[in-house]
């Protein structure tokens, strides 16, 4: 235990250890974190150090301890976490004996964090402006400057109309906007070290590029960056060194170029192999491929040609204030059995709103949604209930979509009514297994799961009732590539075997290319372009689509299966720009 004198000394050091400290901003050796009730430690012997102007990336399997590691560095591993380390230095001070007060001096000012749960990480009762201002004030900005600083930060992270947005509450923002607001609040105090846990999961490619450019600039200014990401392309662009985690242990580490191009550990190799190719998947011939709308039936798929649309939206309009902007402005779509419709688009363009309207969770101001050709959005909830099990939803925010009091078993069990206890337990375990989760998680509560684990629980729940339609809002955003591949494979199989229709919202173009038959491109509440996936990727018609595709990052490296080019177009110039774009500004322009 720490004596008072030690603590005070440590605090003093932490307090005035400013830019004068030459050493690493944070250094930890042999970090071990375990939670009561878990057989294995969540983090087991991780060592890392981040210096000024350096970016270290943590990559690895979902649930491998990336988030727990990063939280441990600011003393927030969790109330029941048992944390130990051989060495733990923060801002040059020995943090081993830190008490709450010393940690407070470190948090925000020396180390800022962007948490993974971006969608729930902001106080729902306060405006995002207030949240950012709070961080700014703690960072020393005072008085009248604060407002200006808030706007400046929001602009920096690419939030359109920052003046208007800062007065909004988190629930009024789209997922991507929330994430950007969270990043802005983490930047507010100018901490020398920034820990960013999956900072771009909810962002479209263009905005993501913008954020990455911003982070690159910060790095160039001499700030340290600890980046947690499952997106290897992002890692490749920003990181100097990379640590690959698996089951709480570092399996491989080294300079980013070496690890990504010449992986030594089989797990790393497996991970790189799992990166979606971005090329059109080799679809089985019998997979139903639909031509959009009224066009002539596809002769290749005679068995589904006369299939009536399962879910149709017509002229959907939705706005959240009487005279406010329209989150949906005349959107229509058609989804047939066995078909996958991808929805991509700008963050805040109304994708989630569309999903909620399609699900009958939100009533459109105009237009209607039909299920199996029958009214759906216009029905009273009571009459919808009977059909609910057939149309399932994976919400964008898996954290908020699970009752914090429920265990995983109950969360999934809720979708399995009428089963006997043992049967239900068996089904739950089976479903978890399908999404690559061990059955031991059944007794956990949501806050005891990693981000990717929560997301998979949500997917398992949606699948439990064997739906015919599945609406997924960013279902794989928190999954590392290997797990993501497994989940996508599962969805594809269900589609083939059971003819499930998928409405698949994602910002990840590689994923959409792999999954979707047809794609809707949305922007500002409208569909700007719609068409067969290949057509859109090969020959985008709308300038925004082109810009979006252009903004896509890809893994650099030696071609082959690993060298992924999502756009599918050969554009070596673009490639080099991306690789070199680590500290250069990456701005993509388009006309509308």
């Amino acid at each position, binding site marked *: 235990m720490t004596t008072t004198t030690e603590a005070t000394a440590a605090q003093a050091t932490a307090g005035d250890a400013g830019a004068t400290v030459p050493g690493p901003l944070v250094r930890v050796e042999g970090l071990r974190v375990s939670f009561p009730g878990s057989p294995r430690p969540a983090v087991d012997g991780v060592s890392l150090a981040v210096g000024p102007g350096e970016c270290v990336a943590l990559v690895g399997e979902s649930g491998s301890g990336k988030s727990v590691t990063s939280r441990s560095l600011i003393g927030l591993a969790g*109330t029941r976490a048992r944390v130990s380390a051989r060495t733990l230095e923060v801002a040059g001070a020995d943090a081993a004996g830190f008490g709450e007060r010393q940690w407070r*001096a470190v*948090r*925000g000012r020396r180390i800022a964090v962007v948490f993974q749960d971006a969608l729930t990480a902001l106080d729902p009762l306060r405006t995002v402006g207030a949240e950012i201002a*709070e961080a700014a004030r703690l960072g020393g900005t005072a008085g009248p400057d604060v407002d200006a600083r808030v706007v400046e930060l929001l602009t920096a992270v690419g939030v359109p109309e920052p003046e208007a947005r800062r007065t909004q509450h988190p629930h*009024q923002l789209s997922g991507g906007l929330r994430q950007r607001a969270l990043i802005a*609040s983490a930047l507010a105090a100018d901490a020398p070290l920034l820990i960013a846990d999956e900072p771009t999961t909810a962002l479209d490619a263009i905005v993501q590029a913008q954020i990455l450019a911003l982070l690159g600039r910060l790095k160039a200014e001499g700030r340290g960056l600890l980046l947690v990401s499952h997106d290897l392309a992002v890692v490749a662009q920003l990181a100097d060194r990379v640590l690959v985690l698996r089951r709480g242990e570092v399996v491989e580490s080294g300079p980013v170029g070496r690890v990504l191009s010449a992986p030594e550990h089989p797990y790393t190799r497996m991970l790189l192999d799992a990166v979606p190719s971005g090329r059109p998947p080799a679809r089985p011939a019998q997979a139903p491929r639909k031509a959009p709308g009224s066009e002539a039936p596809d002769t290749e798929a005679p068995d589904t040609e006369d299939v009536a649309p399962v879910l149709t939206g017509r002229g959907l309009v939705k706005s959240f204030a009487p005279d406010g902007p329209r989150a949906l402005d005349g959107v229509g779509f058609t989804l047939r059995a066995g078909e996958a419709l991808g929805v991509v688009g700008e963050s805040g363009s109304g994708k989630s709103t569309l999903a909620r309207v399609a699900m009958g969770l939100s009533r459109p101001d105009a237009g209607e949604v039909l299920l199996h050709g029958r009214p759906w959005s216009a029905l009273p909830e009571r009459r919808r209930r009977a059909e609910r099990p057939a149309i399932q939803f994976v919400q964008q925010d898996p954290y908020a979509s699970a009752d914090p009091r429920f265990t995983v078993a109950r969360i999934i069990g809720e979708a399995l009514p009428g089963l006997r206890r043992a049967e239900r337990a068996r089904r739950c375990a089976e479903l978890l297994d399908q999404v690559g989760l061990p059955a031991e998680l059944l007794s956990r509560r949501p806050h005891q799961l990693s981000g990717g684990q929560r997301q998979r629980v949500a997917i398992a729940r949606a699948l439990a009732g064997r739906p015919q339609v599945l609406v997924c809002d960013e279902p794989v955003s928190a999954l590392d590539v290997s797990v993501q591949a497994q989940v996508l494979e599962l969805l594809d199989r269900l589609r083939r075997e059971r003819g499930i229709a998928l409405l698949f919202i994602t910002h990840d173009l590689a994923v959409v290319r792999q999954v979707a038959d047809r794609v809707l491109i949305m922007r500002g509440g409208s569909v700007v372009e719609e068409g067969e996936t290949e057509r859109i990727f090969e020959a985008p018609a709308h300038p925004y689509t082109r810009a979006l595709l252009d903004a896509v990052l890809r893994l650099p490296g030696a071609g082959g299966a690993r060298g992924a080019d999502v756009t599918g177009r050969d554009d070596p110039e673009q490639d080099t720009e991306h690789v070199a774009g680590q500290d250069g500004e990456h701005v993509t322009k388009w006309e509308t």
Partner: protein
Amino acid sequence: MSDRARRMPRRHVPPWARFVARRLAAGLVVVWGTLTVTFFALHLAPGDIVDGLIGPGAAATPALRDQVIAENGLDDPLLVQYGRELAQLASGGLGWSYQLNEPIERLLGSQLGPTVELAVSALVTALVLAVLAAVLTAGRGRAVRGAAGLAELLMVSMPSFWLGIILLTVFSYRLHALPSIGADGPAALVLPTLALALPLAGVLAQVIRQELESADGRPFVLTARSRGLGATAVLLRHTLRHALLPLTTLAGFVLGSLFGGAVLVENIFTRPGLGRVLANAVGSRDLPVVSALVVISSAAFVVINTLVDVLHPLIDPRLREGGTA
């Protein structure tokens, strides 16, 4: 569904104003309902109203009974009496006390002020104490929080007349620090305020503590802490606001316990006040007085609850979009 309603162009009446107007209109119905139940309750209770009015100790002659009955129209059919009562109140006057034989305005006039004064000061004290208890113990060790929690529980479980007597004994009779009686000046307000406020503060503090503890693990609290906010700052800027919701919902409970506690506390501290009047009036079935008090109390509740319902969306923006759809 209300999204649609909101879109409909309305004349330039702000929605909250329309809401308040609607609620106050409904409030009138509430007051009427309360009054009606009261009226019939007092008439249905066993025993004759006249006997209650005349009271014991009086040598009640049949002549006196008839006199009181005629005087107050108690021989009219119940519905006629009910109508008269309503008409009386509708005309704006509170009427005349059967039992005390004086106008109710006068009876209540001198009593309303002290009760309101006591209630408000007790409410403010209770709130301040409760928040203070939460703030001072936030983030402290288990022992400190446990001790504070236990102290709050003890406050809660103590009858206020007891607490009153103990406060009196210590501060007034033993230490001669504060007056035990009367309603003049702030000094005389201290002890009765404490007697009323301490149990209430206990309740409020418990609710706050409960909210804080369940908020502890939420992601937004983690974010706030990651900015370097201390436990107190997290509490003041974030979690307290979350606790405000159940707290304000308790406003009715608070008002009720202030009223109820006032009866006993006013007695012990010899303060004028409505509590005493009510106890007497109910005891002697002095219907006009009871009705007047019921009107006052239910109007107070209507106003408080309307206020709370207006406040809620201000506290929690998620409640601003109407309807559950």
